[in-house]
């Protein structure tokens, strides 16, 4: 039990003095890493405000919400087994002193550093001590080297000798630095290093100093050495005991003395209530001397390490982690129990409540005032310096004159006796010698002279406040205002009117006052309501008020002091400051009617569940406007749930920047927000996500924002810190970009539209196709009629003309021609009709027709006919194919019969699902007459046109005495052209 009560008492006392005698608060930051492991070896804060802890040889991170083992944060295998101590350099790197040497973990990149120049070679060594100055980070190794570490490199400053037999673990620092030099006490030697001249010196520490050495404090031109047995020694070339020395042995142990360096001062505190400020040089000139005041309870814990971070100290103890920091205001506190109304009489304050009155002289402490009986002293009114009236909750009214209390027994007229209530809750002076007492049944008028009481009546003689519990009364300028459990009323002497809330709506109003023409109402549940000529306005928690339940109000020069359910709220210039326990308030819940302003002493007393606090309102206002810096919110971790049940976790500061890009396969997204210094309850955290939320809302205590099913786009996560005391709210924003999957892109939507439009277009075009097909058919029929039948009819016409001519030499020949042309025309018409008749699209019709045609045309000429067909499909032949194939075939036969003089013709037609192949061969290809060339050329062009119309391929070749025509039609890709 070396480091117990007194050490911490002194520590707290020291703070109290240094910070303008502000009382220091301590809070338990953490009970333990869990319920069963409460010992902390050391705790450090990183530059991002998160706390790193060593407990049981393991490393943990505390983000203000969760304590997470480092092993869980670091996904790979840990390169260490046990951590002994840690330090964090200014660049966000944790120096871990492990059983097997030093390791450096970079918080920015979230990886261990092994090969970087600033750490190369050090990882094989163990650290003896770490220390920091404003512009440097230093490591003393157990191998006897002192290194200065910079952001990218390291420098060996000097070497020293280590004797492992000597040395012990101290809570104080035996390795310390300032901007001028370093000091290291090790193995009985004191090493000094001049950072300007880059030289070091070593001197042997006398045994009588070294055996009880506990702490080194750097001075200009030397070092101050704390020896817990003797006091302070100074070394400035030689060792000497200073005047700060023990009156008796061990005055300078950790539990009865504390000293530290702050700027150019050395601060020393002892357990006799004395403090000293000394110049931080070898003269140790006393700058200030005085007494300090212990303002806090002590911590009965064993201390393992302490670290200073700004205005705060982190204490790692065997029973939790504690933070000690100055509160923002020094409230004077009268602790006696639940407070109600109070008053001042002569040089004493009398505090009401339940039971005895309590009395406190202007200079002195509070005590029960047993000269007055036990009562429920609810509210008070000071009539004169030595006379006061007290509203009693049971007993109606008491009068206190020069410290003597008498319970008044008012005379109640029989006609009102049945309505009289002796439960007084408030009172106010009224006309002449009368007082108004607000009771559980309306307002009663008490005449001091006659000791008579009667209800306050309106012009019609009606007891208008009857049945109402009166919570506050004020009589000003001939107008009486009062509040009840259902609203706020005005009585002008003749009639009364409800002022707030309107209509039949009810609202409990504890207190009210008027300041600078504005009426303020202290409501239960709606905060403070301001009534002006232009209407009403509400100041609630949404605007930053401590609570929406206000018990008491006081106003001075436009500044409003409100005792709420959660601390004291101060409203000035549209800014709201809240004070709670960590700001110096001993309690947070204030009471109804427990407020008093001592004009003479300029003290405002505000009472609550623990008693009264009192202060000078101007001082509080001044302290409030000197706001403290507020912590910056930090993302401690990002967790992204991906498709396929995969998760990714991000901790590196590099990845937690202002813009976060989520891949398209991200399904869930968690932002874990750290709450730096949240244990000091200095702020509230609100958040808002654009465009998902319309307004800010309180962040969950888990500090987590979870987003599920995010649509692609940009989201702005605004985090607003709302300082409870004195600060202006500040908002930070993170930009979150969710990448779209393909199905969420503009391209995909364009493709969808293309598909829909395409389908609609296809349907429309299919309908249009019928029209177009009809057009095509008409065009083809007209062409066929023109090409095939038109020529024949022209021939008939010409032959008929010849017959008419007398000069016709051979009328029989003409008649024969007419007959032949007519038959051909009939045949042609028959072919065309057959071709356009869709009923002939069935399989077999084409082949039968072709075989019939061939036999009709060729066999009469003695040409042998070989016909071979095969069909491997049941599908109908498209009309355009059938029509053109047939007419093309007919053209081929026509050419053979007219011009080829063939002996045989071989025809083969093969149809399957893919194609139609027709081959016509004959052996009459030789010696075509020249006069037929023109006709043949026309026929070939005609055939090629037909082949083209069905997207077919026509080829003719003459070889080995054979003429071969081959038609191939791809039935899967029929082109509809004319």
């Amino acid at each position, binding site marked *: 039990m070396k480091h117990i009560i007194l050490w911490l008492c002194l520590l707290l006392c020291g703070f109290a003095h240094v910070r303008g005698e502000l009382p220091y608060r301590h809070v338990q930051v953490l009970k333990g890493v869990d319920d069963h492991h409460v010992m902390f070896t050391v705790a450090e804060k990183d530059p991002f405000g998160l706390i790193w802890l060593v407990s049981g040889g393991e490393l943990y991170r505390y983000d203000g919400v969760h304590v997470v083992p480092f092993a869980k944060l670091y996904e790979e295998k840990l390169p260490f087994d046990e951590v002994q101590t840690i330090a964090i350099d200014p660049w966000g790197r944790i120096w871990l002193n492990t059983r097997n040497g030093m390791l450096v973990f970079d918080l920015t990149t979230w990886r261990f550093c092994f090969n970087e120049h600033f750490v190369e070679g050090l990882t094989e060594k163990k650290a003896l001590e770490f220390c920091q100055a404003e512009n440097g980070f230093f490591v003393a190794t157990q191998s006897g080297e002192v290194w200065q570490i910079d952001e990218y490199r390291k420098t060996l400053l000097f070497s020293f000798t280590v004797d492992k037999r000597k040395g012990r673990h101290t809570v104080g620092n035996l390795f310390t630095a300032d901007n001028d030099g370093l000091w290291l006490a090790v193995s009985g030697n004191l090493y000094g290093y001049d950072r300007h001249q880059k030289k070091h010196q070593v001197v042997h520490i006398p045994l009588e100093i070294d055996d009880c050495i506990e702490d080194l404090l750097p001075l200009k031109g030397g070092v101050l050495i704390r020896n817990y047995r003797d006091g302070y020694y100074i070394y400035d070339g030689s060792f000497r005991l200073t005047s700060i020395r023990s009156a008796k042995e061990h005055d300078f142990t950790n539990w009865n003395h504390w000293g530290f360096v702050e700027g150019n001062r050395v601060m020393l505190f002892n357990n006799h209530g004395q403090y000293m400020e000394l110049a931080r040089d070898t003269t140790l000139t006393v700058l200030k001397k005085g007494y300090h005041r212990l303002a806090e309870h002590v911590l009965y814990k064993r201390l393992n390490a302490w670290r200073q971070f700004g205005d705060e100290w982190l204490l790692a103890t065997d029973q939790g982690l504690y933070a000690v920091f100055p509160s923002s205001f020094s409230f004077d506190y009268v602790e006696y129990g639940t407070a109600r109304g109070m008053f001042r009489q002569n040089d004493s304050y009398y505090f009401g409540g339940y039971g005895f009155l309590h009395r406190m002289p202007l200079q002195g402490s509070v005590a029960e005032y047993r000269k007055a009986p036990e009562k429920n002293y609810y509210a008070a009114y000071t009539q004169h310096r030595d006379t006061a009236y007290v509203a009693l909750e049971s007993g109606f009214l008491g009068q206190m004159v020069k410290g003597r209390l008498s319970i008044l027994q008012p005379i109640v007229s029989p006609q009102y006796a049945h309505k009289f209530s002796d439960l007084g809750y408030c009172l106010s002076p009224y006309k002449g010698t009368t007082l108004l007492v607000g009771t559980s049944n309306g307002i009663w008028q008490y005449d001091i002279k006659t000791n008579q009481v009667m209800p306050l009546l309106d012009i019609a003689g009606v007891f208008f406040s009857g049945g109402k519990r009166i919570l506050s009364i004020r009589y000003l300028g001939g107008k009486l205002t009062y509040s009840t459990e259902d609203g706020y009323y005005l009585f002008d002497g003749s009639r009364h009117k409800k002022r707030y809330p309107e209509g039949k709506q009810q609202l409990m109003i504890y207190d009210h006052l008027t300041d600078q023409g504005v009426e303020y109402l202290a409501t239960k549940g709606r905060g403070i309501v301001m009534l002006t000529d232009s209407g009403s306005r509400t100041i609630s928690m949404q605007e930053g008020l401590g609570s929406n339940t206000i018990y008491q109000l006081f106003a001075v020069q436009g500044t409003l002091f409100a005792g709420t359910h959660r601390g004291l709220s101060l409203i000035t210039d549209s800014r709201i400051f809240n004070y709670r326990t960590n700001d110096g308030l001993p309690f947070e819940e204030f009471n109804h009617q427990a407020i008093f302003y001592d004009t003479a002493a300029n003290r405002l007393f505000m009472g609550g569940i623990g008693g009264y606090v009192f202060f000078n309102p101007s001082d509080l206002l001044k302290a409030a406007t000197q706001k403290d810096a507020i912590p910056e919110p930090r993302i401690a971790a990002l967790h992204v749930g991906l498709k396929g049940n995969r998760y990714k976790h991000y901790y590196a500061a590099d990845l937690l920047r202002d813009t976060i890009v989520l891949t398209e396969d991200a399904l869930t997204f968690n932002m874990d927000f750290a709450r730096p210094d949240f244990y000091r309850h200095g702020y509230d955290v609100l958040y808002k996500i654009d465009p998902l939320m319309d307004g800010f809302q309180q962040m969950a205590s888990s500090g987590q924002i979870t987003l599920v099913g995010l649509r*692609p786009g940009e989201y702005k996560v605004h985090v607003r810190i709302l300082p409870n005391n004195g600060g202006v709210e500040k908002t930070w924003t993170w930009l979150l970009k969710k990448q779209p999957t393909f199905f969420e892109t*503009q391209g*995909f939507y*364009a493709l*969808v*539209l293309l598909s829909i439009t395409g389908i609609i277009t296809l349907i429309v075009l299919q309908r249009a196709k019928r029209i177009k097909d009809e057009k095509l058919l008409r065009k083809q029929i007209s062409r066929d009629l023109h090409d095939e039948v038109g020529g024949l009819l022209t021939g008939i016409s010409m032959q008929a003309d010849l017959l008419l001519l007398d000069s016709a030499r051979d009328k029989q020949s003409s008649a024969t021609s007419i007959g032949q042309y007519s038959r051909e025309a009939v045949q042609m018409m028959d072919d065309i009709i057959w071709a356009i008749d869709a009923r002939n699209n069935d399989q077999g019709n084409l082949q039968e027709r072709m075989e019939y045609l061939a036999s009709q045309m060729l066999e009469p000429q003695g040409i042998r006919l070989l016909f071979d067909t095969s069909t491997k499909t049941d599908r109908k032949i498209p009309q355009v194919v059938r029509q053109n194939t047939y007419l093309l075939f007919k053209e081929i036969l026509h050419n053979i019969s007219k011009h080829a003089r063939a002996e045989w013709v071989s025809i083969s037609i093969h149809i399957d699902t893919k194609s139609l192949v027709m081959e016509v061969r004959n052996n009459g290809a030789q010696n075509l007459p020249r006069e037929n060339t023109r006709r043949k050329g026309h026929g070939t062009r005609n055939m090629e046109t037909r082949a083209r119309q069905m997207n077919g391929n026509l080829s003719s070749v003459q070889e080995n005495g054979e003429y071969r025509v081959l038609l191939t039609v791809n039935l899967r890709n029929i082109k509809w052209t*004319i």
Partner: protein
Amino acid sequence: MDLLKEFWIREEECYSWGVFFAVVGLVLSFFATLWHFWFAFRHKRRCEMLLGIMGAASFWNVFIYFLIFTGLVRLVPDIYNKGIPFHYLVAPCAYFFVLFSLFPKLNWPGHWWVHLLPFILGMIDIIPYAIASVEEKKALMDVIVHDMQMTVRHEYGFIDQKWHYINKFLLAFVYIVAQWRLLYMHDLELSPISASTKQNVFAFTIIYTLQLLLQGGMVLSLVFNQTQRSFILQNLDQLSWISFFFLLFSCWLLQNAFRLRAENANDQL
């Protein structure tokens, strides 16, 4: 210049391909549109008049969007939303341009005025904003330039403003289908127009269709992701493609002007 600096926002985004395409497209379409109007009036050509109207409406649409995007619309709040009725003319103009280009001998259909109904309704819907006070207009513009989804959420109109986007594109898709039908039905063998004219109309239809598809894609994005409307409306990834096809359309318009000029010169010879 001070005013420009005062009202200019999204300065960084202005140095992007999307804005570059839009600005070049605006310049090209401005001159090409003027030329088409001049040519149409001089030679009494209805196809060129239709193209001129279409070009002007498209130009106005992009121009206003550009002003909103850069914040400069706050300098001229009166011109905001005046283009709504003209947007409804783009699709009918494109359709009739194709119709009369492929079938030059056709007369105007009997109920041609039906195609003007959306235009008239659009005219009516811009009245509330037109008669609003200058302060109201400025206030709305201030909101819109920072939160572009307000272009479809403001109350200055008889109908929900998003329906303008939806209706415009629904109608445009109806017209584009009809446009493709015309191209399908047209038989070059039976037509007096040249193959190059048909190819020109074909190219126009392709560019216009692609432009419409991308714009329609954006509208669908807005419909299916309403929480991100503001982001989508200023998302340069999407706007770049739309701007690019607007530039293509402007180029086509310009080449059409040159083509007509050359044809006209040949005819005079």
